[in-house]
């Protein structure tokens, strides 16, 4: 004969389970508050009284059936299976262990609950009976249906649940209450309380010993949100389908650099391949505020207050479905406090991130700017419920441990940690970049004289520590350097005073050039009409007039060619090596209208001679300036010839441009000075000045500037036979 035998579970196991799994009062109480959240309550009030704690909510309550089916069943997984509460909230609890944990707080438990369209219910549990019984099934829960006064639930709600813990196991004095309060206030993500997606769930604590403490906590929170200097926000959605996480980094003005700035970055999970090849996280978002704990804060907050607040409540926490996992970011456990390894990396003076890609490299040891936990305030929000469903029973996911305070340290968790660290490292990296850029800008702004004067101040300050003789000598040297620099800066100022208007004139010339186009079209119309008129009335003079108009138009069009290289993107781009002969020919054609009567020859340039890499605009400007110079030199010459000759020997190439002007007027060895700005070799009388091109003493300086930028040299050489001057461009 066969018969069935049943395991009997010793009732002391309940105590064991409750205390071992959830071993902290704040966590135990937190579990009850989560139950209120799952019941769609808007308020959960925790009231500390004489030897009792009440947790009261205005949620939808329980009827006798659901009480028996769910509350009475330990280890029920209905919250795992059920995605959302009736009110649409993502359920937070998982295995129904919360109620067991209450025995950690008190000997007895009384529940009053009212559900719509159902009789109210009252139940009592005496844990002492349970643990004294021989097995689990004999633990009795007394239950009765009874009317409950409305005022029992917050917001005058007719429905809700009140859990009363009686026979407290510990004494709640001001200090322990404060600690508990802090923990409960932080139970919800601060960003959900302050941000755009508030869920309308308040946790109130009523206790005579800590009156005003919650208000102080909330006020501090307000100020935290007013005083951040940098903010990191990140979001991952559909990570398991391969979507990238997005990170936005904001810097306020005057933090690292003058301007406010925003960076955006996208990163594929896993950040590093150590924890799998694919993302083990589907959804997560985070927000981290970074503070500057020195200097003035806004809203009248004293820096000391901010520091104190952040020390108590700062760091980066992890929130599962909006409820904090107490392990992360709390100072109770060093591993949890530095769960991101920020302090560890600072301690080992890590200089470059192990996670950021090469393209984000900046000079300097930027990881030293990693923010310490004491100046950050952040929340990483995940949903272990969601992740569990998304993984569909296969592989690792963000999984909460039974202790309800932390996640399983698996690949998914490590991927999460890497993602947050990528974001913090990105902050350090961009912060350093801002600082470097700002210091460059400041250096640009600071004149050399100011820098030297600062050196003098330092010298004065440390006078007593330097031997007198050395001090005097140093001071003398620095002072004479200041004088020399002042003279040099004055000279630069003088040049800039001319260069700026010239550059403006250049830009105006480009605009004018565009307008010439319109004028030439009108001239074209006018000459065409003249011709038609001439045909109709048979007047040959009108034809002549039309010809003149056409000639003017032709000259205007040709003049436009001087500017053409500056108007075309391809001509401005230095992407290849250009043929010298073709550039010379185009430039000569453009110069012809402004250099009438000059005979040009470019046939001496081999067809396969190429300039060094540079843009057409650059080489054309170089030749234009040389030709303008030659033109000015030839104004008084009877013959006006310019000849280009190019050549190559071994790896050396050159272009020589010779003219029949008046020559250099100085020995060849002194001719280098003509490449200095504002050096004019040719003094023209007033009659000729009108015909001259340029004449500011900048043309050859520009020639040298372009040449040296393109690794070429320029110099005057012995004139070719039959010519007065020969200039050589060599490369």
């Amino acid at each position, binding site marked *: 004969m066969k018969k069935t035998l049943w395991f009997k579970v010793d009732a002391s196991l309940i105590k064991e389970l409750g205390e071992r799994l959830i071993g902290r009062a704040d966590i135990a109480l937190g579990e009850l508050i989560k139950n209120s959240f799952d019941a769609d309550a808007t308020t959960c009030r925790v009231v500390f009284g004489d030897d009792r704690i009440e947790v009261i909510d205005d949620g939808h309550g329980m009827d006798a059936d659901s009480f028996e089916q769910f509350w009475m069943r330990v280890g029920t997984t209905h919250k795992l299976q059920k995605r959302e509460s009736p009110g649409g909230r993502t359920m937070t609890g998982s295995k129904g262990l919360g109620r067991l944990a209450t025995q950690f707080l008190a000997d007895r438990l009384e529940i009053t609950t009212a559900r719509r369209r159902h009789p109210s219910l009252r139940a009592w549990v005496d844990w002492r009976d349970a643990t004294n019984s021989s097995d689990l099934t004999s633990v009795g829960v007394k239950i009765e249906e009874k009317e409950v006064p409305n005022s029992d639930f917050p917001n005058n709600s007719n429905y809700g649940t009140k859990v009363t813990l009686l026979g407290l196991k510990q004494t709640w004095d001001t200090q322990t209450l404060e600690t508990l309060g802090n923990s409960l206030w932080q139970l919800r993500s601060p960003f959900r309380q302050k941000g755009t997606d508030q869920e309308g769930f308040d946790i109130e604590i009523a206790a005579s010993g800590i009156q005003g403490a919650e208000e102080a906590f909330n006020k501090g929170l307000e100020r935290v949100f007013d005083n951040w200097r940098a903010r990191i926000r990140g979001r991952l959605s559909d990570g398991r389908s391969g979507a990238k996480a997005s990170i936005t980094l904001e810097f306020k003005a005057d933090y690292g650099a003058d301007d406010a700035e925003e960076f955006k970055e996208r990163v594929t999970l896993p950040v590093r391949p150590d924890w799998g090849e694919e993302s083990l996280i589907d959804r997560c978002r985070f927000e981290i505020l970074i503070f500057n704990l020195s200097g003035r804060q806004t809203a009248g907050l004293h820096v000391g207050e901010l520091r104190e607040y952040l020390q108590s409540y700062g760091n980066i926490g992890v929130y599962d479905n909006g409820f904090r996992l107490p392990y992360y970011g709390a100072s109770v456990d060093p591993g949890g406090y530095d769960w991101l390894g920020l302090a560890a990396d600072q301690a080992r003076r890590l200089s470059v991130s192990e996670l950021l890609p090469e393209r984000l490299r900046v000079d300097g040891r930027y990881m030293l700017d990693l923010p310490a936990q004491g100046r950050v305030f952040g929340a990483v929000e995940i949903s272990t419920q969601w992740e569990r469903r998304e993984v569909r029973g296969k592989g690792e996911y963000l999984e909460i441990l039974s202790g309800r305070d932390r996640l399983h340290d698996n690949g998914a968790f490590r991927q999460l940690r890497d993602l947050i660290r990528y974001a913090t490292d990105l902050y350090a990296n961009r912060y350093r970049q801002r600082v470097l850029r700002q210091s460059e800008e400041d250096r640009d702004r600071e004149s050399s004289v100011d820098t030297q004067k600062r050196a003098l101040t330092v010298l004065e300050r440390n006078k007593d520590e330097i031997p007198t003789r050395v001090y005097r000598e140093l001071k003398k040297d620095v002072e004479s350097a200041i004088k020399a620099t002042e003279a040099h800066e004055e000279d630069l100022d003088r040049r800039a005073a001319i260069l700026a208007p010239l550059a403006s004139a250049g830009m105006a010339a480009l605009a004018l050039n565009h307008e010439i186009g319109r004028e030439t079209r009108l001239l074209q119309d006018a000459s065409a009409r003249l011709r038609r008129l001439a045909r109709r009335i048979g007047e040959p003079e009108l034809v002549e007039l039309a010809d003149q108009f056409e000639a003017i138009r032709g000259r205007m069009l040709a003049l436009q060619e001087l500017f053409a290289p500056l108007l075309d993107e391809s001509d401005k781009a230095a992407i290849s090596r250009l043929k010298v002969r073709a550039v010379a*020919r185009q430039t000569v054609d453009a110069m012809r209208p402004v250099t009438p009567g000059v005979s040009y020859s470019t046939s001496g340039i081999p067809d396969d001679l190429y300039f060094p890499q540079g843009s057409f605009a650059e080489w054309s400007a170089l030749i234009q300036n040389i030709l303008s110079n030659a033109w000015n030199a030839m104004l008084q010459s009877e013959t006006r010839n310019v000849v280009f000759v190019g050549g190559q020997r071994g790896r050396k190439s050159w272009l020589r441009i010779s003219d029949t002007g008046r020559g250099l007027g100085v020995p060849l060895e002194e001719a280098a000075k003509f490449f200095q700005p504002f050096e004019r070799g040719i003094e023209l009388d007033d009659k000729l000045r009108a015909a001259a091109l340029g004449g500011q003493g900048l043309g050859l300086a520009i020639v040298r500037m372009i040449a040296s930028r393109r690794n070429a040299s320029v110099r005057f050489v012995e004139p070719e036979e039959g010519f007065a001057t020969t200039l050589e461009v060599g490369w």
Partner: protein
Amino acid sequence: MKILVCDDRGDDALSVAQRIKQASSDYGFDAEVTVFSKKNELKNDEEKAALAKLEASFPTSDLKGAITDLFAREEAAVESNTLGEGAIAFDGFDIAVIDSNLAYLHITGARHTADTVAGPIRSFSTTPYLVSTNGADFDFDLQYLVGDPKTVADFGIPASHLGSQWLWKRTSSKLESFRPWYWPDLLNAPKRRREQIKLIGDNIDNSIVKTLDFPKGVLSSIPRSAVAWLSPDADDPRADESALSKVTFRTFFRNACRSLPRNESEALADSKAAWAKDVIARVVAAELEHWLRRELLGPQEVLVDSPHLISRMPFLLGSVAPTSDRLQASVESSDPPYGIDKGLYAAHLAIDDRQFKNEPWLDRPAFWRPPLMDSGAIAKLALEYNQSSDFVFLEDQSRFEKRNTGESGPWEFVSKFDSAGTLRYVGQLEGVRYAPKSSFSV
């Protein structure tokens, strides 16, 4: 032909309108010119006098009002999926000539140019062909050989050329020296465009390359840049030729159209309204013709027209030595064998897979080059050819000229097409602006 001139400045509008009118009388074509210009908010006497002069010569309407109505129609189409009742001012012309700078209109928002209105005019009016003027500061485009390469209109040139005979009547225009080969035949362009629109309307969800009868063998020769122009998906390096074959007129409109912003083309591609199909057909017709001109014919690699074919394969003239007259027949002739030896034409070119069925897409005969290059018979002809040809084709003058190594040209230049054999020639005429200059020096 009904031509609309749009220019915010009255004097410029008059100049353009007169130029076109004069061309019509000089070259014997019918042109009914209407002008849209700035008629309200005139600031000074000069503007008022220019308008009075314009109104005295041409029927003139307010350009700002016309553009405002056009934008309202565009908004209704995209936001509410309705086209609105009746015609708008831009409807009913054959060609619209639009000045590139419309800043004087003072329409709220971004400064308007020919390019900001060309897309909406093309999409939401019945005017099929758009020319933008003065968008680029040059006369001859050495870069892509299409005109103003940035314009959204069908063709962009300086307004000064609108009176050119070559633009309106190609035949017998030997009097002008500046005759760019890439200029379109404007007189026939609207008719061709309407045929294109009809063809697309009948095949909107069919494959583009199949509808246009591309021989299968040429698909692999189409450069990636050209494929990407048609569809970003087909440009995927992992995609094979079939990806190109899958691009339909509608998917091209949705994914790659340049006339409308992406959100608008997506909304319209999904619309079930009958008018939306017309919008798609009008936009795709214009952009597809541009694609053929610039990406396939421009490089003369996938498609090749007769003068370039003759330049590269002078043996197609037969056994006689090439002369400029014989070569020129490939430019002037619009009927087979297009200046090519009759027998050779019949044997090697008058074959289905080698001839591009150009009507209504191109205004000149063209041939598929890849099958010609693969042909053993053509290779044999090349080997047996013993004449030397020193002639090069001048792109700026549409004529052949002897190659010269001296200082008088023809001048070689390199266009931006990413293919081999990009060396081309121009004669470089005085008073004509060629850009970019660096094309001569590469």
